[in-house]
């Protein structure tokens, strides 16, 4: 525990975008996230790693209050976006989510056309003055998500008729189309081939110039490639959080080490 604090201190120089303190999540009686403190920096890619079921998605969903939609879920603790408590009753979760976008673990396109899937966010946020604007936004988002070539001839076809990987990219396009300040991506490349993965990673790099990105991934290589900071979760605890390089080369916690070297799952 101590060293985690230390780690945190060492990064305090950069702007802190999201600060979570003492976060607890319960699903009914199950304690899924146990007292997690973490600070997510601005203009940084943070990777969440950890074995399946350790609570990565759960924690991620806390950051834009998507857990509100799960009846049984209960969140405690303090999470601040730019210093403002996002669980404050005065906070409008809608506004929060407009600023903190999300790509879900399971691709969930709307049962609408590909175009409408991407255009939906920009439309409700008033990002386009006219149809041409909107077309531009959609094209740009699809290009960034590396789907444009496959989708350009079938923009009016339903998004649910895409292949698994295509759906995943569609959801990425949908999320980036609204240009959120923070983008939470829950295993965004799980169904993608190496090339598409590469393109999405490039996108992440690009986003980092202005925004901050949190990515959940099971691929150590990917975490190492794209992220500057890495958080390792295990059984609901945040075991270790620090510079990615340090985590992968010189983990302080034995559990982290075991996981990275492939000994615990």
């Amino acid at each position, binding site marked *: 525990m101590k060293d985690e604090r230390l780690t945190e201190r060492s990064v305090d120089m950069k702007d802190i975008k999201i600060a979570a303190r003492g976060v607890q999540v319960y699903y009914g009686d199950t304690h899924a996230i146990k007292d997690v403190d973490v600070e997510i920096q601005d203009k940084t890619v943070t990777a969440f790693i950890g074995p399946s079921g350790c609570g990565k998605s759960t924690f991620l969903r806390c950051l834009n209050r998507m857990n509100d939609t799960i009846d049984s879920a209960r969140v405690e603790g303090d999470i601040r976006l730019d210093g403002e408590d996002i669980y404050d009753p005065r906070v409008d979760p809608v506004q929060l989510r407009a600023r903190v976008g999300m790509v879900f673990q399971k691709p969930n396109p709307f*049962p609408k056309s590909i175009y409408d899937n991407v255009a939906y966010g920009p439309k409700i946020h008033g990002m386009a003055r006219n149809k041409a604007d909107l077309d531009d936004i959609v094209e740009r988002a699809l290009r960034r998500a590396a789907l444009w070539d496959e989708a350009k001839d079938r923009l009016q076809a339903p998004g649910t008729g895409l292949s698994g990987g295509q759906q995943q990219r569609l959801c990425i396009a949908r999320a980036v189309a609204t240009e959120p300040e923070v983008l939470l991506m829950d295993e965004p490349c799980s169904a993608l081939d190496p090339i598409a993965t590469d393109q999405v990673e490039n996108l992440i790099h690009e986003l980092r110039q202005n925004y901050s990105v949190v990515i959940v991934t099971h691929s150590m290589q990917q975490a190492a490639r794209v992220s500057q900071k890495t958080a390792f979760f295990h059984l609901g605890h945040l075991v270790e959080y620090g510079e990615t390089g340090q985590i992968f080369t010189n983990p302080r916690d034995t559990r982290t080490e075991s996981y990275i070297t492939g000994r615990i799952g």
Partner: protein
Amino acid sequence: MTDAQADGRPEGRPANSILTPTRRMKRRKAAEKRFKLYGMIAVTVGILALVFLLTSILGRGLSAFEQTMVEIPVELPAETLDPEGNRDPAEMQRVTTFSYAPLVADALADVIAAEAIEIEGLEPSDLGGFISQEAAAQLRNFVLANPEAVGTTLEAELLAGGRIDGYMKGRVTMETAALDSNVSVEQLRLADALEEAGYLKTSFNWDFITAPDASDQRPEAAGLGVAILGSFYMMIVVLVLALPIGVAASIYLEEFAPKNRLTDIIEVNISNLAAVPSIVFGILGLAIFINFMGLPQSAPIVGGLVLTLMTLPTIIIATRAALKAVPPSIRDAALGVGASKMQSVFHHVLPLAMPGILTGTIIGLAQALGETAPLLLIGMVAFVREYPDAPPEGFFDPASALPVQVYNWTQRADPAFVERASGAIIVLLVFLVLMNTVAVILRRRLERRW
């Protein structure tokens, strides 16, 4: 290809071939077949029941769309119709239909004489009953509208009496007439003779659709005009109120209401409203809309409001079920791009729930269209002969309704009304089908799998 096939085949036969079902598979397959068969039987039962009911309705009611008319010249003598002789409508109005009735019988007698029709035992009194009593009113209206026609002979097309009409349609026969105190065999013979001479003819009965109801003595003149208008007005009210209110209430309960005791109570309450006998809604309507709010009686607005309250639970139950069935992942997706709850509901969930909502509407409206009991207490189960005005005033005028007309006619003593009632049911069903067509088409287009 054949080559590869030969190559590809393993040496021994596989343990179980997919071409030959295993015993267990056979059993399961049989179960599958049975299951599907049950489904088919169920659909067939439904459709057969419909076909059976429809044929019986059509069989009994189609003849209502035809009407026997008598075309004879009627003298309009000035001495009876305008005793003062100055063609003043106000004076002529004092001559009642009672004075017009004999003219019709006389005209018939003239025709018989002119055509030299001889029927044994034909009494003079038989002539009066041969033509509808409506004829006197028809003539009087004509004369009051055209005072100058007095003194001339009018080529009139008059309604034949109910039983004569029945004879032409095969409902009344010589045998039944012999037993019937309201028609004589001689009258039927006269009908035959007149038909031969070309005075009697059968034509499509527009009046059945446009004319108002008639009293118990004139089944041949009874029509559905007022009832159709009344039902139409009521359905407008129901559609305009029940659908939006029902959908709004469902959205609140399903998507926004905090899940607590109170909403549980509300939920149970609404399902319970569906079980309230419809006549109780009549009691409610009388108490609230007429006695408390002072709305007029027998008015489509009140009927529509009562039926709205009655239909709401149906629409709410259907809508809630449809909303519940939309997968939560779609809501998440919308919320995830920063849509508000309200937007996620109106942009995504509601459109996907639309088929279910439309089903609820179809069933709710069908129920509302066919309901009589609640109208009983608010004065719409009534004999109404005046057409309601055009909307919006018409909503407040007395009117009846199609199911009411069916109900009333089935209660009348003259068997000719059985035919009318069945005819009214046909009109009601046509009305229903027309009303539902939009919903059905829309539903079909909106159905979507995910």
